[in-house]
């Protein structure tokens, strides 16, 4: 297996309550790409990354990160879950949350020390949240909360990042800041996969697209994959969405 394939998903099938959510998905994501996972609601976008990260059981399929299975490559993987998955009233401060990113390396029982705090501070600075370190997480705006969770993923010092709908409930300034940061990560040779539902910004943000609708519709360079025909395949039959697709294609300047 080639070493510069960051994520390799083979024949992945996921079933919820005996209803298939993802069928036979095969994708290879090369290293150093900023990847948008795109598709209509219920297409299995979040499920794809949850399945890849071992958070939902697979009916079939294998996932490799740089040619190794998840249990041998957890240190390579960073994760930002969906905002709704978080209990914002939990008694943790911003610093506590970011420090969680270092837990994986620490192993059992050992607590984060000076080095970990320093790293967490750096990660907070990278997302512009350093002055909020002592706040309880409920006392932040939606955009600030998302930045904190991004900082936690940075503290994981991973090579492959998975972000589940990071732009939901986030202000425009934060969305820009997050995109800039993700592009920076790509420049550093990291691979970033983002579940995304806003077709308008796909061409602007991502250089690689995975188009899903329960099955894999297409995956590859944005310019080759994000085409009217593929979009019609992914969103086909949903008439209200067709206009959105048409507009997205129009704005993207695709012939």
């Amino acid at each position: 297996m080639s070493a510069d394939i960051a994520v390799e998903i083979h024949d992945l099938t996921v079933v919820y309550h005996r209803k298939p959510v993802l069928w036979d998905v095969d994708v290879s994501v090369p290293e150093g790409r900023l990847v948008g996972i795109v598709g209509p609601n219920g297409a299995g976008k979040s499920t794809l990354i949850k399945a890849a990260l071992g958070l939902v059981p697979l009916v079939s399929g294998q996932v490799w990160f740089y040619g190794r299975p998840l249990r041998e490559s957890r240190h390579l993987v960073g994760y930002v879950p969906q905002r709704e998955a978080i209990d914002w009233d939990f008694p943790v401060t911003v610093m506590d949350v970011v420090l969680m990113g270092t837990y994986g390396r620490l192993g059992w029982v050992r607590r984060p020390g000076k080095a970990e705090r320093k790293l967490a501070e750096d990660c907070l600075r990278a997302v512009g949240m350093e002055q909020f370190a002592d706040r309880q997480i409920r006392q932040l705006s939606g955009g600030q909360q998302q930045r904190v969770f991004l900082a936690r993923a940075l503290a994981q010092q991973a090579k492959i990042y998975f972000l589940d709908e990071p732009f939901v409930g986030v202000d425009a300034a934060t969305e820009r800041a997050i995109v800039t940061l993700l592009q920076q990560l790509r420049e550093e040779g990291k691979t970033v996969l983002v579940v995304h539902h806003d077709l308008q910004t796909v061409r602007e943000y991502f250089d690689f697209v995975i188009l899903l609708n329960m099955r894999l519709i297409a995956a590859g360079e944005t310019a080759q994959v994000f085409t009217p025909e593929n979009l019609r395949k992914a969103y086909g039959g949903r008439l209200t969405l067709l206009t959105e697709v048409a507009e997205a294609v129009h704005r993207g300047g695709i012939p």
Partner: protein
Amino acid sequence: MSYVTVLVLLTTMLLGATSGLLGCFAVLRGRALLGDVLAHAALPGICLAFLLVRERHLGALLGGAIVAGLFAILVLGLLRRFVRTKEDAALGIVLTVFFGLGIVLLSVIQRLPAGGERAGLSHYLFGQAAAVSQADLFLISGVGVVAGLTVFLLYKELLVVSFDPGFAGVQGWPVAAVDLLLFSLIAVVTMIGLPVVGVVLMAALLIIPPAAARFWTDRLGQMLVLAAAFGALAGAAGTIFSAGFLSPGRTGSHAGLPTGPMIILTGTVIFLASMLCAPQKGLLWRAVRLIGLRVRTAEEHLLRELYECIEAGLPDAAPVAIVTLKERLRWSGAGLWTVIGLAAMRGFVRAEDGQLRLTPKGFEKARQVVRAHRLWELFLIEQAGIAPDHVHRDADQMEHLLRPEVVTELEEKLQTARRMAEDAKKLPASPH
């Protein structure tokens, strides 16, 4: 204090501390009622175990309780999974069915010819702290130490698994195993607490101390320590109150009030005190802050009114008749005098012969207030498109909340829009 009292006191304190500590995780996970289910479900297990061994063997009864509790949890899981009963309904069904079965078995045991009465199983219903033995104390000490060590050593793991199980899973923590460990500990503490506080009230010991502790802190570590302390306090105080208020000769099983309920009531007092007095989240604290804000608002209104009365005649500052101020502010006499009194105490104004005068310090303060008010009015008219005759009231609400950096930002905005004099120190004229 007699030996029995010390024994009971230590047992209830340790029980309170341990359940307070572990209860934090149950409450934070939204699993507060799990303890209730475990406690109620334990009753039939205890009765069946007694029917099997025919004596009050501590180990056997505990074993029966735990098996029945785990069985109830299993039934709960199956109900949710295959019948898709809603969580609260499933909890209610399992809890009451097991409890009902327990009551039936209990009455069967009490009618046994072999002196079921002596088994003392009815203590499990409402608790009988006076009946605790040394073995009970050793047991709760052991479990307390294990629980304390577990939480201390695995603090980081418990934190990440409780807060964000998905993230913990990606990092490779065995989420299910950590959960199982945690809820096994909770189950064991619940079962040990049954003979002391009773099936009906045990859940309160898991829920009330953490809920009270949550008012005082936003950090898990502090919450754990506080909840354990509150639990121990409730246990100790409840025992002391129930022991006939420490009157000599009335301790033990002849005590005036039942221990379990007294522990819970003491815990409730701690909870209410926390709800009222805790900083930031306490109701009293918030009320004091609100009153403080209203007083400050009134004071700033007074200063602004005073400034606007003398503004035309500046730099000569003539005193203003208090009657005039009363008319302009439309406040009640008592209200006005209260505010004047407070402002005078802070050295902003001086009252003499029914007239009010700004002190130099008050003048500076009044200028700031007027400035913030007018900047905000200008901003509302210019940038938010609000009609000039509406802005005064809107600005009135906001100006007291404007921090200095916001005022500076307002200035910059208005300056770029060329609506402000270049000299930032200058006061803008009233726009209406």
